[in-house]
């Protein structure tokens, strides 16, 4: 049985092909999906998605959304998705530092919410790069 993964963002289709296995960061922790998984619906956190092709792993930074698994068909709906190999490490690191600084400076409820979100996004991107580096 083959497993088909489809990652959709509002702009484009980021991934639409066959995979062996994926590890998805959901709101309630990471879950691995292998072929013939039971149909589930889950919220996807801001975090990384690991995809196993035949013998290599690919990482992707997901910016929060939703995933549906059913009859060997995974549909991931996210606001934004970037492949680890497509992210510029320097730029990501800088963004992370800026985000950290912003959180320290943040005043009031609203700014904290914004800064926290930005920080989590930045951290995920850096994580995606690091995971990519470790694997390859």
């Amino acid at each position: 049985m083959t497993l088909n993964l489809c990652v959709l963002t509002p702009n484009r289709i980021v991934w639409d092909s066959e995979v062996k296995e994926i590890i998805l960061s959901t709101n309630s922790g990471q879950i691995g999906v292998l072929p013939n998984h039971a149909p589930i619906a889950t919220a996807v956190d801001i975090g990384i998605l690991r995809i196993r092709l035949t013998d290599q792993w690919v990482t992707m930074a997901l910016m929060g959304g939703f995933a549906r698994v059913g009859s060997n068909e995974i549909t991931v709906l996210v606001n934004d998705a970037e492949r680890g190999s497509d992210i510029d490490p320097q730029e990501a690191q800088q963004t992370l530092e800026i985000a950290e600084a912003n959180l320290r400076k943040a005043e009031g409820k609203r700014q904290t919410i914004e800064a926290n979100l930005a920080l989590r996004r930045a951290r995920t991107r850096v994580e995606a790069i690091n995971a990519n580096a470790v694997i390859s």
Partner: protein
Amino acid sequence: MLVSSKPSLADSSSLSSRSFISPVQLTGHTSSKGNPSRSSSVTPIHCNLRELRERIDSVKNTQKITEAMKLVAAAKVRRAQEAVVNGRPFSETLVEVLYSINEQLSTEDVDVPLTKVRPVKKVALVVVTGDRGLCGGFNNNIIKKAEKRIAELKNLGLDYTVVSVGKKGNSYFTRRPYIPVDKFLDGTALPTAKEAQAIADDVFSLFISEEVDKVELLYTKFVSLVKSDPVIHTLLPLSPKGEICDINGTCVDAAEDELFRLTTKEGKLTVERDVVRTETVDFSPILQFEQDPVQILDALLPLYLNSQILRALQESLASELAARMSAMSSATDNAVELKKNLSMVYNRRRQAKITGEILEIVAGAEALI
């Protein structure tokens, strides 16, 4: 020779006074169908032949520019349409999922922060304008709409703040410091999820931190290439039922407000005019929810909010380009007409001059005999 050159000047001017009448008649003709401001620019054709020629040339150049802008806008409209098409798989799947989850949740009492309806004290208006001018009344229309809405809110005694998107709106609101603006955001050539995300983040935090109790999106809805309407669309609170009223039961929505509807029968949720009929049959009935359904809805609604904003940005861009296209095409038409009128005057003037010169020569020859 010197003596003869003098009457020739007098002659040509007296003759040209006759040709004066014709432009006036011509402009009288054009002003009846065109705008009167242009006719006033045509009337003073007091200039001499060379100046006329220069004017014809400059009109020709302007015509070339407007024609090129029209073609560029037309090409960009196609690209904007492609962007909408590219986003379709996403929005279709989203609609499908939302629909089925909503079905499953319809029996439960959901409490999601984004759908929480509070008594409205302050409203945030997200005004989407273009980045550039030369597109007819496009920017003015949407800004006028915003002004009208602001006045309405003032009358209702509600507080408001503006989130301005696009350079034209930004410059408008910076010139009017009495309008409270929360944030200025720049639009880009082609709206992407990132821009939508920036706006969504802003309104999200405004709403969640309870700084505002309602978020309205003002943008130009793309109807067709020749028609687009500025509309007000309630973004937040998202309502799973369809109607948005505050707790006291008073509806503060604008009359022509388009509402977010989750529960329509055909599963049509988007602003799209072409009905998206998505198949909901393949959605497995034995689907398990990994988290609480409420949590899943919580994850889905920001996505929906985002795609809603992106759609609005795309529509606004498409309308801007369409507006530019029609503005430029009428500008080209005007230039063609102006060129026609000017060259007619020019030819008359030239003819008159030649006639005058021949008359002079004949008169001179007769005087010699």
